[in-house]
């Protein structure tokens, strides 16, 4: 039974990790804490839902489209909001993203009402397959594997491509990056887009089995903040490990203490870790 509980947590954890990877990118590279990150996820889910409802494309098939759309939302957010507050003093940037999250959430309700929307005919159903005595839901498995692959893809992009290394260089030393001929404004726009692309992908992977409504993102976005803090700001690998850790803790905690207390365990761990290691478990 505990094996079953761990596998459930693990599958959730990979999806949490992908959402957190997006958040850790903007946090680590630009020092921007994007409170609207969860709303990016939300808009990704609605994007996936409406493409399914209007054109009939399953969220898993329309994933590339949603990724591009939310990448665009990220770039636009940078150009319209973030760019203006990047060098502002104190909490300006924080308040700007907080305001943006309010605007996006309320626009969601305004456009699409507060009612639940569901993708009722998903491509991959909720049937379970049995592997080594464990029951694994097919749709969860597809989402988890997809999230893991995409997290690796982001890692490879950051480590191996010219633009990826330029993102790292800019995060280490912005002025020096400019002296290399790197257009740091463009790098920031790409980083914000990439951050959006991560949640766009996560949204598509989850849209088949998650009820979609304006508050659907709240849990994921709160957990993403915890995961980023545990994993170390800007640390993609850290976000992956911490995402898996949180997924398993949530699941095992719920099993041992009771489902209503599972987040108590998650946030307790968070509080303890930041007391002992403020840079997170895997921080630089």
């Amino acid at each position, binding site marked *: 039974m505990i094996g079953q509980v761990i596998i459930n947590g693990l599958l959730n954890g990979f999806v949490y990790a992908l959402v957190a990877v997006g958040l850790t990118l903007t946090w680590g590279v630009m020092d921007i804490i994007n409170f609207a990150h969860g709303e990016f996820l939300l808009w990704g889910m609605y994007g996936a839902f409406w493409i399914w409802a209007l054109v009939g494309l399953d969220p898993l098939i329309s994933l590339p489209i949603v990724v591009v759309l939310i990448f665009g939302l990220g770039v636009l957010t940078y150009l319209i909001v973030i760019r203006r507050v990047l060098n502002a003093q104190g909490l300006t940037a924080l308040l700007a993203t907080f305001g943006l999250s309010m605007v996006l959430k309320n626009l969601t309700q305004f456009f699409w009402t507060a009612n639940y929307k569901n993708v009722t005919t998903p491509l991959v159903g909720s049937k379970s397959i049995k592997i080594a005595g464990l029951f694994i839901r097919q749709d969860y498995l597809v989402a988890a594997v997809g999230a893991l692959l995409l997290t690796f893809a982001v890692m490879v992009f950051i480590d191996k491509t010219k633009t990826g290394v*330029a993102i790292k*260089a800019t995060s*280490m030393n912005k002025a020096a990056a*400019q*002296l*290399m*001929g*790197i*257009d740091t404004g463009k790098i920031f726009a790409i980083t914000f887009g990439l951050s959006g692309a991560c949640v766009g992908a996560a949204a598509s992977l989850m849209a088949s089995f998650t009820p979609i409504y304006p508050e659907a993102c709240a849990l994921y976005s709160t957990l993403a903040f915890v995961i980023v803090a545990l994993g170390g700001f800007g640390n993609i690998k850290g976000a992956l490990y911490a995402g898996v850790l949180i997924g398993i803790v949530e699941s095992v905690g719920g099993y041992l203490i009771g489902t209503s207390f599972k987040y108590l365990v998650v946030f307790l761990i968070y509080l303890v870790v930041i007391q002992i290691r403020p840079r997170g478990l895997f921080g630089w």
Partner: protein
Amino acid sequence: MLKVRNLKLGYDNVPVIFDVSLDVKEKEVVSIVGSNGAGKSTILRGLSGLIKPMAGTIEFMGENINKIPAHKLVEMGIAHVPEGRQLFGKLTVRENLMMGAYVLKDEATKKDALDQVYALFPRLKERESQPAETFSGGEQQMLAIARGLMSRPKLLMIDEMSLGLAPVLVDKVMDSLKVIRTTGITVLIVEQKVKEALELADRGYVLASGRILQTGTSAELLESDIVKKAYLGM
């Protein structure tokens, strides 16, 4: 190549450099010397576009570059090796160098540039996969200069390359500049070590409190009373 007229620079509208004019001709090595706080680094930051002029003009290759952003100036041929190296510490030597070559489009040119700096600093090749932050001060300075050369600049500007280096390393780094100048690159250096800098350069400018005090050939400056008294302790 570089023509600066009545340049005024500062931070947050507080000027640090007042009315500075200077010229750098092609294939020259020119040095700006002066004590700590004279404003030498600020001049280089202005020339590379990191800060924008409050007044005056900067012309590079006949074009006014006052308003051109820093990253575009690299493409035009200005490389700035900043004070304190400013390496990308977590990146490897090779990654640092490839960031230096960021503006080069074609792979063959990048490879050429890499071979060239490795020939100049063989030590870097031996340790190309090591993170830059694990290097000693002298090695870091060599890497910083090499990174600056990777963009194939027409004008290489180096800020305080002797800072924090043991005398034997200062000589070594200065020697590398002698090799660099034979490749036809124009060099502008900014230094607190007045004697060493002037011995290396063709001409020099003496800067104090944001103004140019004196200019001339290096030989003239080394013999002048101001330099002897204020900087060489003679």
